[in-house]
Every structure is written in structure tokens, then in C-alpha cells.
């Protein structure tokens, strides 16, 4: 049987469930509120942020533009979006077990491996669509409302200015990276959904793992330093690497450059390894699983 037809069945089910649209609404509402807040009071916020720099630099132009808004939104939301991802991915198997449809599904002439791959693909397509939706709101609408200009990113020790003409491809790359990070989260929730008969468990477990790993990341204790590079949560914000630019001898931005592309690629590779690990584990568990629901 064609794999694409089974994926179609899975996507049909995903997008006919009311809960699927919670995530889309949540993103629209949260991003909309952030945009509204910045539209009303953004100048004060920017002035406050730039206070320390205004003595040394003469900063002018439209700093609070759509590109900066997208950066702020991405930074704010990419740790919350996993919950919205887990809402659907954590329900892929456990939801079927809860409905009692898993046993009917497994009595159809489709191999268990193909079934799990189709479900995994469907949950990833949902994740990608959700990220595209987020990109439309955080980047597209922000640029429409706030306009486009150079992106000024304030970090603890430096300010990075990226020319407007050099920003858009960085966002495309950042969202692609964010997709990979969220697919890793999706794969984890998907794997956990194999062990439950309702979706609450996998969703809670996924979020708990992310919270625990994030805390481990922030704890500056030597005992955890050995495992930190291997935790997928350490690499979820790797998209920021696309906004670190190289400078030439005159301290000017080199157009199209990324300061540490190797680090970004290693982070992406670790996320990919986690995703594949969760997928293979899901296939093995599901193939051996007795369907008792």
C-alpha cells in the first residue's frame, strides 16, 4: 500500500480533531498580544533597552521593526511551543488507544512499521505547519505592521547589527532549524505516547523532560557539564547562531556570513540523532507491543 495514502489518513484525522487548532489559536493570540503590546508601548521598551548604549553610540532609524519583533517572539516562544507540539504528537498513539481505534487500525493490512512511520510523518507535518503559521504571524505580520529595517540584536556584551537585506534568509534558516528542534520534541512526545492510554501522560512527561533538561542546562555545576552537550534541550535555541555574523577587519558585517556555522551544524546533528533515536525506539516498541486497549 502506498505510504502517502496512509499519511493522508493520519493527517485527515489530525486536522479533523478540534484540539489540533488549539495550538494555532494559541500562537495567533500570544503573538498578536506581543505585537499589540509592542505597538502600544514598544518605543519605551526599546529606549530602556538601549539606555546603556545611547551614551556611546548614536542610534537612529526604525529599531523596533518587524525583524526585531520576530526575533523577540521567537526567543520568547520557542520554549513554550513544545507544549503545543506535544498536544498532538503525544496523542498520536495514546489517543487511538483511548478511543479504542488502535486495535481496529492494527487489524488492517498495513505493517506496524509503516503505520508508525505514517503517524510520525503526519505529526511532523503538523509540527512544520505550526512553525510556518508561527513564521507568518511573528515575521510576516510583524513586518507588515512594524515595517522592515536593519536588525539590531542586543546581547550582554555586544550589539549585532544585521543589514535588512541580509536578514530574511537568516529567518528562513532559523525557522528551518526551529522545525528540526520541534520535530525532536514531537518525536519524544510520539515515543512516550506508545506507553499511555490517554494523551495527558505523554504531554506531561514530554514537558517534564524538557523542564528537567533545561534546569540541568542552566545549573552551572561540574557534575552535569559532561552530559549537557548531549541533551537535546541544549541545542533547541541553536537557531540563534544564524544571527551571529562575521565581521571584517573594519568591524563591518560580512554579508551572508555565520560566525560559527560548525556549532550550528553540530547542534542540528545532535537534534537529528535524538529524533532518529526516538523514531527507531518507537518502531521497536510498537512492533513488539500487545494491543490490549
Amino acid at each position, binding site marked *: *500500500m502506498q505510504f502517502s*495514502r*496512509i499519511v*493522508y*489518513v493520519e493527517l*485527515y*484525522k489530525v486536522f*479533523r*480533531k*478540534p484540539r489540533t487548532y488549539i495550538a494555532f489559536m494559541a500562537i495567533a493570540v500570544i503573538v498578536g498580544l506581543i505585537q499589540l503590546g509592542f505597538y502600544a508601548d514598544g518605543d519605551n521598551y526599546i529606549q530602556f533597552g538601549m539606555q546603556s548604549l545611547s551614551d556611546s553610540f548614536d542610534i537612529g532609524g526604525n529599531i523596533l521593526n518587524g525583524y526585531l519583533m520576530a526575533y523577540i517572539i521567537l526567543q520568547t516562544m520557542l520554549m513554550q511551543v513544545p507544549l503545543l507540539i506535544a498536544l498532538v504528537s503525544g496523542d498520536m498513539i495514546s489517543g487511538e488507544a483511548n*478511543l*479504542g*481505534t488502535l*486495535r*481496529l*487500525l*492494527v*487489524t*488492517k*493490512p*498495513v*505493517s506496524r512499521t509503516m503505520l508508525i512511520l505514517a503517524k510520525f510523518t503526519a505529526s511532523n507535518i503538523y509540527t512544520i505547519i505550526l512553525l510556518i503559521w508561527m513564521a507568518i504571524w511573528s515575521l510576516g505580520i510583524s513586518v507588515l505592521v512594524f515595517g522592515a529595517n536593519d536588525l539590531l540584536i542586543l546581547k550582554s556584551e555586544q550589539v549585532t547589527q544585521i543589514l535588512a537585506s541580509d536578514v530574511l534568509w537568516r529567518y528562513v534558516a532559523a525557522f528551518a532549524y526551529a522545525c528540526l528542534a520541534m520535530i525532536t520534541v514531537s518525536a519524544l512526545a510520539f515515543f512516550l505516547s506508545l506507553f499511555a492510554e490517554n494523551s495527558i501522560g505523554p504531554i506531561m512527561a514530554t514537558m517534564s523532560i524538557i523542564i528537567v533538561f533545561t534546569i540541568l542546562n542552566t545549573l552551572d555545576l561540574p557534575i552535569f557539564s559532561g552530559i549537557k552537550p548531549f541533551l537535546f534541550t541544549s541545542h533547541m535555541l541553536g537557531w540563534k547562531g544564524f544571527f551571529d555574523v562575521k565581521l571584517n577587519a573594519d568591524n563591518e558585517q560580512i554579508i551572508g556570513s555565520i560566525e560559527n556555522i560548525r556549532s550550528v551544524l553540530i547542534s542540528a546533528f545532535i537534534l537529528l540523532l535524538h529524533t532518529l533515536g526516538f523514531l527507531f525506539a518507537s518502531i521497536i516498541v510498537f512492533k*513488539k507491543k*500487545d*494491543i*490490549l486497549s
Partner: protein
Amino acid sequence: MKTAIQISNLTKRFKSFTAVDKLSFSVNQGDVYGFLGQNGAGKSTTIRMMLSLIKPSEGDIQIFGLSLEKEREKILSKTGAVVEKPDLYKYLSAYENMKLFSILSGISLTRAEIMRQLAVVGLEKRANDKVKVYSQGMKQRLGIAVALLNDPSLIILDEPTNGLDPQGIADIRSLILMLSKDQGKTVLVSSHLLSEVEQIADSMIIIDRGKKIIEGKVSELINPFSVQLEIISLDNVAAKEVIMHSAWSSGITYASTEKILINLNKDMIPALFKFLVEQNIQLINIKTTNTLESYFLSITNDHAV
């Protein structure tokens, strides 16, 4: 006659509990096969193994001469099943459920074809309603329609009349007979009700605690002239005394202050009725009841008088 299902030494253990214990039986093609047992006897576990939902601990399952372990997809493409409750996607309509499961069954049906299938189970007018608003009977019928989507040669129905009203039960019974007698399909029906199975099945097996108790042709196993009679009178103690001291005493299988159960030949019912009236037993109700429990007790001689 060709064999549709051949089960050999099938065993399923869940840790230290053995749900199915070296079970062997065979089903001929075109037969309606009754799979009987009390709740918890191991029927559903056996059916789940036959549908590859759970893996046997030991034993072999051959369907249409193919090994289930090696030819799973080939076998399932010719099999339709309703396992326990007919759970479907509640947030989808009957039509949508049928459409999705037809794709998963490897066939592509047009709307007209799906509506025709729904008409077989009497749901064509409710095709666009969401399953969540369906009654239990409608869900059961939709479950059967889904099982029949791929025009299967083997249909496995696990307790198909559970939760149905008398009309629903009669409809399912007619459908099973039509599928078997008119279309030549092999139907395996599990039930804990002997009366249900004896009306439709050609052969049957009774299992208990995962083991086979008896297997054979229904006509050979159940005497069609023998019935179990349930007697309820104003004074059941007196009625029991009267029967115990008569020629009918050997037929009593159960007696309490609530009711008396007695096995006898159908022809003898009027004579028993006359005898009880002559003995001034004030009868409230007399009815025939053939339960699996009574049959099970009769074949194991475990009478509870």
C-alpha cells in the same frame, strides 16, 4: 471442505497468568463458527492473537493455509473484524470512517460504493452524522460495515450483539447468516450466550480458562429437542418438593426460592405444566432458557441442585 482457520497449541501468558492454554481448533471455509466461553475464558485474547493484535507465547495460527506470523498483511487483507466494542473515530462521520478505513484496507471506494455498504447495515441515512451521536446499536452496525469494507473471506466478530436491543440482535443474526449462506464467507462469532450461537452456527467450541472444553457440530453437541425450563411459582420451595418427589426430579439443575431450572425434552413441557397444576402449584412464569452456563454445567456434570 477446505480449512479457513487452523489453530494449533495456541498459548498466551501474561506474566504468571495463562489466558489461553494450548488451544487447538479448526474452522471450515463457509461455516459460521461459534466461539463460546464465559467472560474471561480467553475468547478475546484468542481473537486478538488471530488478528495479530497480540503475539502468542506459543503455538501457530494458520489462516487460509498461510502462517499469520509470516503472511500477516496478506491474511488481514482478506479478513474483517470487530473486536469487543466497535470503537471508531467519534469526531468523524460514518462516511468519513468508512472512507479512511477503506484506504487503510488497500481499496479505493467511491461515495456511492460506501453508501451502498452503509445501506447493508441500515446507516445510509445517517452517513454524515458524527459517530459520537450514534447509539450503541448503530456503532455496532457501523463496526460491521467497516469490517466488511474489503469484502473479506473471513469475518471475525467478537461479541457482536453486546449492548443491542432484540431487534438489533435479530438484524445481526440475519446479517451473519446472509454473509455465510449467501456469500459463502467464513464467520467466527464469539459469544458468552449459547442461545445466540446455536441459532446461527454450524460448528462451535466452548473454552474455559483458556482451554478447550468441547468442539464439534452444533447439531451434534446440542440436542435440539432438549430445553432448559425456568419455573417461577408463588411458592418455589413447595414446587421444588413436588418436583423432587416426582419422575421429573432427575432434570432439576438448579433450585432456589427465586426459581427452579429443569432440563427436559420439549415434548414433555405440557405434561410437566399439567402435573404442576394438578399439584396445586400456583405458577407465575414458565420459560425456556438455554444458557451457556447450564450447558456447560450439563456437560461437566457440575450440577448445582
